[in-house]
């Protein structure tokens, strides 16, 4: 997924590698982000998303490869901090600080004048249902409200590029929806958004393009349609039969990929492009009585799991970052020694 023209793309990540002690957290990742799009880095914990994000923000430096920004580079070779907003995965605010001064301080570090920052902060606080809490201490807010304050601080200076690491983390469904709408509004206003998430279902509705990572490597990427097309699966159909399917029944469904469950009474069928659900049912009803049919486009989560060779029914461990590599990569940063190459 390479697009190396910095004149048309605000962000180009070119063959970037980052190693921690004995673990390669990011291994030759490349992508380019178009102006005004929502670009999502997806994968379970430990896939390397946050490491990529930290390199984009200049917190870490790549061991190999390079980053280019046509919106201007900051003093550390990363994105220009004055034109970039960053929501870190490890949320952090001064617990003893008051809400408004905290936001104004962080905005000041991003180049905003104090008066303007105060004016905008009050408007944002009202928008996030935090009006009247300006003089409260940060640690007097709920965790969700602290998340909102952090998000406001990341976006107050109206950055051209917003880098949001796990923006849905810590929010309840109502506020997750609020964040989704906010991200769409940012895109509509021309802001380029790079976000990372492991809740793929939340991202499906807002991302223009995605890059799926696994153990620091690219798995697949592009628009949702392109990702689906590249997976070769147009629809995922679950059929419940009255009697167990026989092997020759399954063979008759080729070229669809079929996984039989529950003594072959339930069939999970990945229907390739160019094949309709109707023709599938026609083939099935000719051989067996069909009790129930459920058809949907495969979710990103399913496509991801399929790409990394994991059965979606047994995928919880992978999506929680339970693989050894994922754990090692994750721990390498958290457990120290991360920064020293």
């Amino acid at each position, binding site marked *: 997924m390479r697009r190396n023209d910095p004149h048309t793309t605000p962000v180009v990540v070119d063959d970037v590698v980052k190693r921690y002690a004995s673990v390669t957290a990011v291994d030759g990742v490349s992508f380019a982000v178009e102006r005004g799009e929502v670009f999502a880095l997806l994968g379970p914990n430990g896939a390397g998303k946050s490491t990529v994000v930290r390199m984009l923000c200049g917190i870490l430096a790549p061991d190999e490869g390079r980053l280019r920004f046509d919106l201007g580079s900051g003093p550390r070779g990363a994105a220009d901090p004055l034109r970039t907003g*960053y929501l870190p995965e490890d949320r*952090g605010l001064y617990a003893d600080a008051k809400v408004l001064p905290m936001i104004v301080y962080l905005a000041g*570090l991003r180049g905003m004048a104090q008066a303007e920052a105060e004016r905008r902060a009050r408007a944002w606080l009202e928008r996030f249902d935090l009006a009247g809490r300006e003089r409260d201490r940060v640690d007097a807010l709920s965790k969700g409200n602290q998340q909102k304050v952090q998000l406001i601080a990341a976006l107050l200076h109206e950055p051209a590029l917003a880098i949001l690491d796990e923006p849905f983390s810590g929010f309840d469904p109502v506020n997750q929806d609020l964040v989704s709408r906010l991200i769409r509004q940012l895109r509509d206003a021309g802001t380029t958004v790079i976000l990372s998430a492991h809740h793929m279902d939340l991202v499906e509705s807002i991302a223009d393009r995605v890059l799926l990572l696994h153990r620091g490597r690219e798995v697949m990427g592009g628009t949702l349609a392109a990702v689906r097309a590249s997976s070769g699966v147009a629809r995922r159909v679950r059929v419940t039969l009255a009697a167990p399917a026989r092997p020759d029944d399954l063979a008759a469904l080729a070229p669809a990929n079929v996984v039989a469950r529950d003594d072959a009474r339930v069939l999970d069928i990945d229907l390739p492009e160019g094949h309709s659900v109707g023709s599938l049912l026609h083939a099935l009803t000719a051989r067996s009585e069909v009790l129930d049919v459920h058809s949907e486009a495969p979710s990103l989560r399913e496509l991801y799991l399929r790409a990394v060779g994991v059965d979606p029914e047994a995928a919880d461990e992978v999506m929680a970052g339970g693989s050894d590599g994922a754990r090692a990569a994750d721990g390498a940063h958290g457990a120290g020694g991360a920064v*020293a*190459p």
Partner: protein
Amino acid sequence: MTHWRAVTLIARWEFLRFFKVRELLLTILFIVLGYTLGVPLFQALVGDRAGSVSVAVDASAIGADELLRGALRLLVESPEPLHPRFAFEWAAAAEQPEARLLAGDLDALLRAAPAGGLEIVVSDGVPGWLQELEELLGTLVVPLRLAAEGVPAERVAAVLESVALEVTALEAGPQRGGLATTTLVVVALLMAVFTGTGVLFTVITGEKTQRVTEAIVSAVSPQAWIDGKILGTTLFVVAYLVSYATGIVLAMVVRGLFAGELPALPSLVTDPVVLLVTLVAATLGFGLWFTVFAAIAATVSDPTTSSRGQFIFLPGLALAVGFLGNAGNVDGALFRFFALLPFTSPSALPVRMMTTSVAAWEVLAALALLAGSVLLARRIAAQVFALGIHMTGKEPSLAEVWRWVRRGGAAARAPADAFPRRVG
């Protein structure tokens, strides 16, 4: 944003986090009230008995020594007390003075020693006022002895007259401070440096545990962050020192107004050169020690279990050499070395200047070395700080820290360029 614009913002934030005007004014008020009201109140409550020592003199002490007998009679029977601390009385023959001693009615019993001369009997231990009593007895006995030798009274008075020295300086110079001033200055420095290092330790380890680090470092360089922290913390402790000093001066003035006589200000305040050098050396010293300590704090993972918190005593130990100026020779080679050494000069240099004449080159050299050390430490500390603040879960070993230091200041200024990489 320029580096110094970021430094200013951070310094202002760090300063205002801890500098509370209301607390400051209250502190000044407490100092003034404590000094102007507390001292008279203490005197009213305790009176002239504060620290007084009651001594019974056994008549048997008056032996054959006429002079001693005269001295003791003077002590006991003088209409005015001869010493503000001691109250003398004759021990009644019928009573048992030892019992009064043990009961606490008496502090001491003065009587004839079996081997001749006098002995003092106390309830336990060697009293702290013993030397004072010996000096008092001496001042009484010596003139009596002289009189016994036939020296006329006016000659005795002339012999015992204290010597007043008039100072003639070959060159105009400031009046030197005394023990109290130098002690006060060193104590103030110690207080300030302990306060500042304590604040830095709390702040930096707190930023790591509260995960503030990434939000800041993504916006400004670690060098700007540490510069702002050091500047803000230094301003904070200087502001508090000035506040305490203001409170003390105000208290002295207010008390003087009540007493009808304004106090003489310490020489440190009246000598602009010494005052300026003291302020500059102290400020640079804070900068140096705070820079070192910020780097140490950045390597701490868990402040509750880390042994690195004990490094907080290092600056105190170094700056305490200023006390040697009170006890030792401030013109000696060792103290002059301390006055030049950057880690000790913030304390030793002002003490030297307050107690002796210091050559201009020594002052300039000390300040230049101190300023150079601050600049060097700033670069090295920022390198350690830049890498240490991202480490959680374990502390880097000293070998790792040394490796970071050897890399130079690249990570602090531009981490992306501090690591080897291949351009694809």
